[in-house]
């Protein structure tokens, strides 16, 4: 169960990590405890995101970096680099795309459960914003993938 602590935000781990690990050591494994820990992870991330005012910038920075990487891959593909390498790159970007889509759906579902349907769809919650950011990563990577495999 101890590995679950790595799902918590870094700042939270630095503050409570040691004592939390001590508590976990004294507990018996049960699915109820694991479920409670996952709830704790969502709660801790929610608190963390509420406190990060610059989070909107961070998502946009991630999108810029992903766009640059994708543009680089697409240019290489158009310029006709070696086939095997491009196939490997295509496999990696499709994995990134799928992981982004999965995370986007998870964050969106968590947001809907946590804040309700009306607020979850309203784009006011940070979890929904994160979900949209991840959707953006998905769209960019899947776009790059389609270009790479078609060249």
């Amino acid at each position: 169960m101890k590995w679950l602590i790595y799902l918590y935000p870094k700042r939270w781990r630095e503050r409570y990590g040691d004592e939390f690990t001590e508590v976990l050591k004294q507990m018996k494994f049960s699915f109820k405890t694991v479920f409670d820990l996952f709830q704790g992870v969502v709660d801790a991330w929610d608190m963390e995101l509420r406190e990060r005012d610059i989070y909107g910038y961070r998502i946009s920075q991630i999108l810029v970096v992903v766009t640059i990487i994708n543009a680089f891959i697409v240019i290489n593909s158009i310029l006709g680099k070696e086939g095997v390498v491009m196939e490997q790159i295509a496999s990696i970007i499709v994995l990134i795309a799928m992981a982004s889509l999965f995370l986007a759906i998870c964050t969106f579902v968590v947001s809907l459960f946590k804040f309700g349907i009306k607020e979850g769809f309203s784009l006011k919650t940070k979890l929904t914003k994160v979900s949209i950011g991840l959707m953006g990563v998905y769209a960019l990577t899947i776009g790059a993938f389609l270009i790479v495999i078609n060249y």
Partner: protein
Amino acid sequence: MAKNKFSEPALFILISLAEQNRHGYAIMEDIEKSYDIKLGPGTLYGAISRLEKAGYISAVESQDRKKPYKLTEEGQIYLAEQIKEIQKVTNMGMKRLGLV
């Protein structure tokens, strides 16, 4: 500071610390013993971090990895207010049920 409405686990933690300083696991044990409610570690530390941020509890300096927590003065005032609120609700319920 805005008076947040805390969840039930947070109140149990405050009541546990009103008796004596306790570390995380000891709080869990006390809550289980007193109310027969088993708090999970995720719920416990979620509530602890909220209470600490609100300034109602604070960690006591310790060499041990298990940090004990204590109730702050603000925490005592908040807990007293909450108990009075709960008492009002209980009294009203008892009255309307004809139990008093």
